[in-house]
C-alpha cells in the first residue's frame, strides 16, 4: 500500500480531512487540481459570523497540510481513475499536469509573471481583472509556485516547418517589443527578413482567425520586425560564440537549408564552412526571387546573421568530391544543394532560342543581366510560383503582353493565390486549361507557340482535377519569348556519385535524422525533399544541425526528439472560449499595380508601428501561452521547462476521501438578471473579491466605469430555491455571505445604501442570527421581494423590478448603481466519473449521496470511499470542517477494519 488514504481535493474540507488523518498517523496522498491548495475559502474576503480574515484562518491550515510529515501533497494534479483492488483498497491513477515550471527550482519570485506577454482574465479574481499566463495563482498560494497556462501549440506555430513561434512574436509585437519579437524569430531561423516576405506562410493558412475574419497578418508582421530591427542594426549585435567543439563541419550549398544548418551548428559552438558554387550566397533566395518580392539587401543582411557567428562562406567554390572534404578534415558534411535543374516540357522546339526556363530567366535578371523586353510578347508556361514570378518580372522588364499558361484550372495553380491575383492586377493574362504542344520559330528564334485546350475529366489520385487535351482544339499564338516553368529537379552534379539517391534524384536520408548511409553525411533542404518552400528548407537545415551536433558529440540519435511540441490546439477549442471577437481592422497596403510594374521596388508596403500593433492585437492566442520565451529568459532559477509533459502515476491506497467541493451557480443562466451583459451586475463571489484586501481593483468600484457605488442591491436566491433553473434546494451560505459583504461594504463605503432583496433570511448557525440583527442595526435595508427582471439604464445604473412580497406582490421598480447576485452553490459532480468499477451514487441534486445520513455522514455508496465537505451538498465553512473531521474518523475506522481483516 502506497498510502493509507487518498484525499481528492485540498479545499478547506480536504485539507482538514488530510490533516486529521495525518495526525492520526495515516499516510495521506492529498491531490489538488489547482496549482495551490486552499479551495474557494482562501479567495474569500472575511468569513461570517466572526468576520475573521479568510486568509488568516486558511493559511495556517494550508501550511499544516503542505508540510505535514504524513501528507504527500500533489498540486496541479488530477485523479484520473480509481478502481477497487478487490481487497477493500483502491488503485488510483493520478496525473501530474504539466505546469511547464520545475517546482523544485521555482522560488515563487514572479519574475516570469512580470515578463509574460499574454494576459487572460484572472479566474482567481472572478474575471474582474487580468492576470498573466505565467502566474502564481494568488498571493497566499501554497505551494508558491508558478504555472504556465498552455492549451497546446498554437496552430500558426504548429504549422511552421521551421518551428517559428508565430504566436510568440506576435505577442511581443503587441507589447511593442519589436526587437524581442525579431530575436524570437531569429532563435528559430536566421533568415528573418526573407521569410517575412517570401515565406508561403503556412501559419497564416492555419490561423484560427482566418475563419472569422480580421486575422493578424502574420508574415507581414514578421517583415515588420525584421525591417524595424535591420533599420536599427545594420549588423548583427553578436559575434562568434565561444567555440565549444573542435570537430569541423562542411555545409555544401548556401540556400536556406545550408544557411540554417550552418547557423544552428555555429550557435552550438561548431566551426562551420559553407561551400557555394555560385558567386554569391543565398541559393534560390537570391537567384529566383524577384527584387519586388525580396530585395537583395534583405538577403544580404539575413546572411550576415549567419556569418556573424563566424561561419566561413566560400562562394564560387563547387565541391567536386565528398571524400576530398573528409580528407580536408571535415568531420561531418551536410549536403544542401537544392534542386536547381529546370524540368522540361518535352515538346518540339523547346531548345529554340527564345524559349527559356523560368529559373534561368529569373537568375539572369537577379544577377543583373540586362534583358530588355520592351514591346515584346511573353508567354510563361506553368502554374507555380516560379511561373508567376517570371511573368511579373517580364512585365517589369517592359513586356507588352504577358500570358501565363496553365493546363489546369486557376484553383489548382500551385502558386500562392495572392501572387496570382497580384499578377493579374498588374496585367498578366491567364490562359487556363491550355497547354503548349510545340514551339515554332524560324530556326533562329521563337515566333509562335502552338497550344491545345484542355478539359477536366474528374479527379486523379491526389485529388487534383485531371485534364486531357480537347481533340481538335489546337491553336497558335505569336510570342517573342516563352518561359517554361514547369518544375525543378536535382542536378547531376559530380558529387552525387558519392551518395545513394532516390529515384527522383533526391538524396536518400533518414526522414527523422537526415543522416545518410554514411554516418558523417547528412542532407537537408530541397536536395532531400525535392522542390519545396523556403521555410521547409530552413526547418530541415535546423533539424539536420540538431542531429549532426548529437552525432558529432557521440550522442545517440535514436531517442532524441527534435523540437518537441504540444499537440496543436483545435480551432473549435479556441472559438469555444468566447462568443464574440471584436477586432481592430487593419489592411496591409501595397503599391498601385500601374506604378509597381514600372520598377522592381517592393510591392507590399510596410506596416506602420500602429498598424503592426493593431494587427497583432487581433491574435487570439490559441495556445493561450504564446511561447514567446520571455518567462524562460526572465527566470533566475532556470525553472521554466516548455518540454514538461503530463505524468501519470499509479498508487495503491487503502481508502478514498472525496472532497471535491462545489461550483458556484453560473449567474449568466439567470437571463433576466443581465449578468455578463450589464457591467454593473456582478456575482457575490466577485463582490467578495472586491472587498478582499487582495482585491482586483484599488477599491470597491463598479466594473462599468470605476465609480464608487453608492446604492447597492443584493438579489438573494439567485440560482437557488428555483426549479426553473433546475436547482430547487437552498444553497445555505448565500444569505450569510451577503450579510457579511453588506457589513464590510458599510464599513468601506460609509455613505452607501445597501438593499437586500430576499425571501427568507437563513441565519441559522451559531452566532448567525445575531449577525443578521447586527447587520439590520447597521442600516442595511431588507426588502422581501422576488426579482422579476433587471434592466440597464444609460450610464450603467440598473432598474430592479420586483414583486414586493410584503405588499401583496405589488410590482415595483428601484434604481441601483450596482447589483450583486447572491449566487448559489451547485454540485461539482465530476468526481463520479473517477470511479471505474463502482457507482458513486449522487443524490437528486447531483451531490455525493449520503446513504447513511443520520449516523454515517461521510459514507458513500462505495465501501471505502468517503465524502467530506461540500461534495455532499451546500455547507458553510464550519459545517464543512466538521464534516471533514467526521470523514477522517470514518475513514480511519475503515482503514482499521481492513487492517484487522488482513
Amino acid at each position, binding site marked *: 500500500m502506497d498510502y493509507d488514504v487518498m484525499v481528492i481535493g485540498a479545499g478547506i474540507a480536504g485539507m482538514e480531512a488530510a490533516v486529521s488523518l495525518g495526525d492520526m498517523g495515516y499516510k495521506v496522498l492529498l491531490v489538488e487540481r489547482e496549482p495551490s491548495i486552499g479551495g474557494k475559502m482562501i479567495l474569500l474576503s472575511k468569513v461570517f459570523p466572526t468576520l475573521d480574515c479568510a486568509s488568516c484562518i486558511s493559511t495556517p491550515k494550508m501550511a499544516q497540510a503542505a508540510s505535514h510529515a504524513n501528507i504527500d501533497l500533489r498540486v496541479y494534479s488530477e485523479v484520473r481513475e480509481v478502481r477497487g483492488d478487490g481487497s477493500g483498497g483502491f488503485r488510483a491513477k493520478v496525473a501530474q499536469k504539466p505546469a511547464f515550471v520545475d517546482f523544485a527550482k521555482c522560488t515563487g519570485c514572479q519574475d516570469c509573471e512580470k515578463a509574460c506577454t499574454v494576459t487572460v482574465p484572472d479566474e482567481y479574481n472572478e474575471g474582474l481583472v487580468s*492576470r498573466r499566463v505565467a502566474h502564481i495563482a494568488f498571493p497566499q498560494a501554497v505551494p508558491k509556485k508558478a504555472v504556465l497556462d498552455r492549451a497546446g501549440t498554437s496552430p500558426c506555430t504548429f504549422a511552421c516547418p521551421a518551428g517559428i513561434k508565430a504566436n510568440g512574436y506576435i505577442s511581443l509585437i*503587441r*507589447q511593442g517589443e519589436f526587437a524581442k519579437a525579431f530575436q524570437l524569430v531569429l532563435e528559430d531561423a536566421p533568415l528573418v527578413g526573407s521569410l517575412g516576405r517570401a515565406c508561403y506562410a503556412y501559419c497564416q493558412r492555419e490561423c484560427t482567425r482566418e475563419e472569422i475574419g480580421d486575422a493578424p497578418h502574420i508574415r507581414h508582421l514578421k517583415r515588420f520586425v525584421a525591417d524595424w530591427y535591420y533599420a536599427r542594426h545594420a549588423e548583427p549585435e553578436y559575434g562568434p560564440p565561444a567555440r565549444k567543439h573542435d570537430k569541423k563541419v562542411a555545409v555544401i550549398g548556401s540556400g536556406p537549408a545550408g544557411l540554417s544548418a550552418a547557423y544552428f551548428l555555429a550557435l552550438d559552438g561548431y566551426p562551420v564552412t559553407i561551400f557555394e558554387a555560385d558567386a554569391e550566397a543565398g541559393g534560390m533566395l537570391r537567384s529566383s526571387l524577384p527584387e519586388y518580392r525580396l530585395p537583395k539587401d534583405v538577403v544580404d543582411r539575413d546572411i550576415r546573421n549567419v556569418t556573424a557567428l563566424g561561419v566561413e562562406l566560400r562562394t564560387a567554390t563547387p565541391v567536386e568530391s565528398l571524400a576530398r572534404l573528409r580528407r580536408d578534415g571535415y568531420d561531418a558534411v551536410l549536403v544542401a544543394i537544392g534542386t536547381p535543374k529546370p524540368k522540361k516540357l518535352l515538346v518540339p522546339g523547346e531548345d529554340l532560342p527564345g524559349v527559356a526556363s523560368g529559373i534561368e530567366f529569373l537568375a539572369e535578371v537577379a544577377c543583373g543581366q540586362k534583358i530588355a523586353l520592351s514591346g515584346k510578347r511573353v508567354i510563361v508556361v506553368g502554374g507555380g510560383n516560379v511561373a508567376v514570378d517570371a511573368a511579373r518580372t517580364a512585365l517589369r522588364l517592359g513586356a507588352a503582353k504577358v500570358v501565363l499558361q496553365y493546363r489546369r484550372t486557376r484553383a489548382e495553380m500551385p502558386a500562392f493565390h495572392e501572387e496570382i491575383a497580384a499578377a493579374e492586377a498588374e496585367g498578366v493574362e491567364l490562359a487556363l486549361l491550355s497547354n503548349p504542344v510545340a514551339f515554332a520559330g524560324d530556326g533562329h528564334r521563337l515566333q509562335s507557340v502552338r497550344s491545345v485546350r484542355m478539359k477536366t475529366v474528374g479527379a486523379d489520385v491526389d485529388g487534383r482535377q485531371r485534364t486531357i487535351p480537347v481533340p481538335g482544339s489546337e491553336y497558335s499564338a505569336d510570342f517573342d519569348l516563352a518561359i517554361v516553368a514547369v518544375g525543378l529537379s536535382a542536378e547531376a552534379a559530380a558529387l552525387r556519385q558519392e551518395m545513394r539517391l532516390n529515384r527522383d534524384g533526391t538524396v536518400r536520408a533518414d526522414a527523422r535524422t537526415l543522416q545518410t548511409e554514411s554516418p558523417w553525411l547528412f542532407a537537408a533542404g530541397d536536395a532531400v525533399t525535392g522542390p519545396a518552400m523556403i521555410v521547409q528548407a530552413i526547418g530541415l537545415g535546423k533539424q539536420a544541425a540538431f542531429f549532426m551536433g548529437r552525432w558529432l558529440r557521440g550522442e545517440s540519435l535514436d531517442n532524441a526528439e527534435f523540437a518537441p511540441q504540444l499537440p496543436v490546439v483545435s480551432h473549435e477549442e479556441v472559438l469555444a472560449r468566447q462568443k464574440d471577437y471584436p477586432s481592430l481592422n487593419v489592411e496591409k497596403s501595397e503599391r498601385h499595380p500601374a506604378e509597381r510594374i514600372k520598377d522592381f521596388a517592393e510591392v507590399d508596403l510596410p506596416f506602420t508601428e500602429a498598424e503592426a500593433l493593431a494587427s497583432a*492585437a487581433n491574435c487570439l492566442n490559441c495556445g493561450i501561452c504564446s511561447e514567446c520565451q520571455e518567462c524562460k529568459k526572465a527566470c533566475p532559477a532556470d525553472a521554466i521547462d516548455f518540454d514538461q509533459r503530463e505524468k501519470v502515476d499509479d498508487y495503491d491506497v487503502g481508502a478514498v476521501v472525496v472532497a471535491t467541493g462545489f461550483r458556484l451557480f453560473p449567474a449568466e443562466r439567470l437571463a433576466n438578471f443581465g449578468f455578463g451583459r450589464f457591467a454593473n451586475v456582478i456575482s457575490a463571489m466577485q463582490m467578495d473579491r472586491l472587498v478582499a484586501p487582495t482585491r482586483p481593483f484599488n477599491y470597491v468600484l463598479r466594473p462599468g466605469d470605476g*465609480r464608487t457605488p453608492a446604492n447597492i442591491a443584493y438579489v438573494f436566491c439567485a440560482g437557488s430555491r428555483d426549479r426553473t433553473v433546475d436547482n430547487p434546494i437552498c444553497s445555505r451560505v448565500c444569505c450569510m455571505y451577503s450579510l457579511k459583504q453588506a457589513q464590510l461594504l458599510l464599513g468601506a463605503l460609509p455613505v452607501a445604501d445597501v438593499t437586500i432583496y430576499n425571501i427568507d433570511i437563513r441565519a441559522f448557525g451559531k452566532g448567525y442570527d445575531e449577525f443578521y440583527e447586527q447587520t439590520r442595526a447597521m442600516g442595511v435595508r431588507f426588502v422581501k421581494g422576488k426579482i422579476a427582471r433587471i434592466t440597464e439604464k444609460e450610464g450603467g445604473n440598473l432598474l430592479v423590478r420586483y414583486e414586493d412580497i410584503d405588499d401583496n406582490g405589488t410590482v415595483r421598480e428601484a434604481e441601483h448603481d450596482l447589483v450583486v447576485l447572491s449566487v448559489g452553490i451547485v454540485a461539482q459532480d465530476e468526481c463520479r466519473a473517477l470511479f471505474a468499477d463502482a457507482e458513486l451514487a449522487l443524490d437528486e441534486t447531483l451531490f455525493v449521496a449520503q446513504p447513511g445520513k443520520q449516523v454515517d455522514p461521510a459514507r458513500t455508496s462505495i465501501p471505502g470511499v468517503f465524502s467530506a465537505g461540500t461534495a455532499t451538498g451546500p455547507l458553510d465553512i464550519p459545517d464543512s470542517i466538521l464534516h471533514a473531521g467526521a470523514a477522517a474518523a470514518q475513514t480511519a475506522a475503515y482503514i482499521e477494519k481492513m487492517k484487522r481483516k488482513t
Partner: protein
Amino acid sequence: MKDNSRERFPESVAISGRRRETARQEFAVRARVLGLLRERGPLTVPEVALALGIPAPDALWWLMGFVRYNQVRASEKADDDGYYRYALVEVK
C-alpha cells in the same frame, strides 16, 4: 435526473468572451493609455474612455491591469462623483 451537472450548469463563463478579448488587447493599448496619462496627468476611468474612444468597462479593465503590475497608481481618494484618478507610475 440528467446525467451530469455539467450539462445542467455548464462551467461558469463569468469570464465572458468580451473579457478575454479585452485582456488580450491590454498590451496593445498599453502605450496609448500610458501615453495619455503621461500627457494629461491623472485621469478617471470615464476620462480615459472618452479620450481614447473605448468603452468604459474596457478602460477600467486595462487600468486595473496596469495598477496590478505597478505601471499605474490610483489616487488616495475619490472625487465628489466617486471616481478615482489614475496616474502613471514613473519608472526610475
